[in-house]
């Protein structure tokens, strides 16, 4: 009989660990490169300076995007938003560590990864609006984007479903002997889902090249991590699947990037999948539908605000003379401007996609049901404009 706390007897990490773990549990070592103040051992740096600055710019952009979208939602200009405030280092550090041919299976907070994969900002914004510019024809809620040219798959709401899918995609490439590693995102809440279990188990048995990225942001809507699982860490769940597990400071972009590279390298070398736990924090509500004050004291958040990954990377860059105050101001301003312009352009598009788009794409070709029902819908709309009018509701 052995208890999980016995695990504490073994502590190892490939990359070394600077400072103690920022989160709960200490039986599994946490990998860090940057200290809280942004300083780092120069020997541990693996990201080229230019790329690092670009990732910093993207983190800033991601933050501004989230803030702007939340504002738009409050103004009633979009219906819903769910973002990554506080989790930017996790999202960008992992995505940037992958190769272009790799597939990314998002959860729903990885908009920065979609943009990194080349999704044009206006296309992204049109999905937020679900208007005539939306490549997905207004079929899904905001924040359910897909971007096939960047191998960024189609977001859906049911938790965990993307996990075995990511395994299947990597499996397909391996069968064809193509070098591809898939990466899949999910929250620590999703580790309770059935599909987390099946995905990791299938990958373990078949040594599928998949990097499983758990954004452990401490909360699943109102549920704190310790109500989600009794395991002290998420990384140790790898033991159940006979796969590698690693725990990393998710607010340390350098650590996240390095750990993801390692996991990717193992996968590509045929050594199997890795469960990568990125310890971070959801600084805001779950989404614009949520008010965390009902379940989370703001004191709980304060320590994490101090660990914000953006100022931390800024301090790192500044400390190394890679980012001046002027550059910082310029990239903040550029982000603001790009967003403003794109929002203006996209809001100018027709508010609704065409009626037939509701019936197309259910199948490769419409069946008779969709064809007949499209005619039915057309006739109804033509006969009575109130058909599509939200104000005309019973009750």
């Amino acid at each position, binding site marked *: 009989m052995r208890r999980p706390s016995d695990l504490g007897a073994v502590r190892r990490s490939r990359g070394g660990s600077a400072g103690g773990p920022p989160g709960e549990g200490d039986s599994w070592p946490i990998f860090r490169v940057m200290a809280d103040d942004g300083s780092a051992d120069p020997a541990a740096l693996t990201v080229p300076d230019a790329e690092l600055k670009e990732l910093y710019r993207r983190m800033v952009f991601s933050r501004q995007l989230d803030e702007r979208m939340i504002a738009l939602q409050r103004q009633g200009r979009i219906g819903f938003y769910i973002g990554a405030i506080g989790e930017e280092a996790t999202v960008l550090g992992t995505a940037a560590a992958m190769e272009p041919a790799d597939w990314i299976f998002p959860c729903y907070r990885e908009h920065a990864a979609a943009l990194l994969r080349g999704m044009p900002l206006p296309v992204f914004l049109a999905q937020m609006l679900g208007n005539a510019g939306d490549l997905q024809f207004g079929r899904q809620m905001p924040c359910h984007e897909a971007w096939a040219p960047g191998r960024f798959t189609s977001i859906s*709401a049911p938790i965990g479903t993307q996990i075995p899918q990511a395994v299947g995609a990597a499996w397909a490439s391996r069968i064809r002997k193509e070098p591809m590693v898939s990466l899949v995102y999910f929250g620590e809440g999703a580790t309770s889902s059935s599909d987390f279990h099946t995905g990791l188990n299938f990958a373990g048995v078949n040594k599928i090249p998949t990097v499983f990225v758990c954004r452990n942001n401490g909360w699943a*809507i*109102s*549920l704190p991590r310790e109500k*989600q699982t009794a395991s002290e860490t998420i990384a140790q769940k790898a033991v159940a699947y006979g796969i590698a597990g690693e725990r990393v400071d998710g607010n340390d972009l350098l650590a996240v990037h390095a750990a993801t590279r390692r996991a990717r390298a193992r996968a590509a070398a045929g050594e199997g999948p890795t469960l990568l736990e990125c310890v971070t924090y959801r600084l805001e509500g779950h989404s614009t539908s949520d008010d965390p004050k009902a379940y989370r004291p703001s004191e709980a958040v304060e320590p994490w605000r101090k660990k914000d990954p953006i100022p931390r990377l800024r301090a790192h860059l500044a400390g190394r003379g890679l980012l001046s105050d002027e550059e910082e101001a310029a990239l903040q301003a550029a982000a603001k401007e790009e967003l403003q312009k794109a929002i203006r352009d996209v809001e100018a598009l027709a508010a609704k996609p065409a009626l037939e788009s509701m019936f197309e794409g259910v199948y490769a070709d419409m069946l008779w049901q*969709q064809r007949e029902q499209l005619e039915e819908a057309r006739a109804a709309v033509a006969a009575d404009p109130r058909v*599509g009018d939200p104000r*005309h509701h019973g009750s």
Partner: protein
Amino acid sequence: MPTFNIIQAVNDALRLEMRRDPSVVVLGEDVGRFGGVFRATSGLFEEFGPDRAIDTPLAESGIIGAALGMALNGLRPVPEIQFADFIFPAMDQIVSEVAKYRYRSGGQYACPMVIRTPYGGGIRGGSYHSQSPETHFIHTAGLKVVVPATPEDAKGLLLAAIRDPDPVLFLEPKRVYRAAKGEVPEGEYTVPLGQARVTRAGHQVTLIAWGAMWHEADLAAREAEAEGIDAEVLDLRTLQPLDVDAVVRSVTKTGRAVVVHEAPRTCGFGAELAALIQERCFLQLEAPVARVTGFDTPFPYTLENEYLPRAPRILRALRQTVAY
């Protein structure tokens, strides 16, 4: 009598029944300390503690599986599925286990429970916060399926469902969660399962609906009246067991029927109603039973009002059916 909306009515029913019967517990994602993402279980954690207002990990099959074990062992669980769209991970527990437990064990065991879940569109929820999955569960022998349309019924039906010896799926129409307000009797009362409500008497055509769509049907019937169409409106309230007598009685009188539901048309409950009506009222029928339904597509986001079978489309069907 206080004026409640449906959430308040549900909350009131849960609180009263938990006070009355110590075996009643609620469980699900965010239902405990937070009181539910729609606040339907608000205050229960404070009053009854974490043993009876239980926050669970994020796994619907775990919620239903655990509820089943609780029910076998004497509790009366009321699990919540946060949105009906997320019931599918629990499908196996519901269809293979909850629905069949009494039967397969020869009645040695039973697992009464009420699976509460908000369902339906009209809140800009897109494909995964809008669906109406009732067909799957009506088709599954062993389950009952209840859908209130009003606060008064929500409370009375929920109390009846919790006291019912069979497992019940209780679908709460979330579009009218707050919009539907009404006087609700204080204290305990039950609205019996399996009884439809004739909410408007008429003689020309029977209009059958439930949940949020009953409100649309009601509006359409009022508009139809202005055009001289005299519709009888039925709010089914319970889909399984269906109040087939009420349906047959009305259609025998009117000779015409229009059925409304949000779920996609093909194999929706409207098909069963049409089949039953033509089986039982064949010689009285003067027009085909018409179906005004969601379309055979996933639930869309931007065009949800075009998708939903709301009053203007119902009105059209009433006109066509009466003119047939």
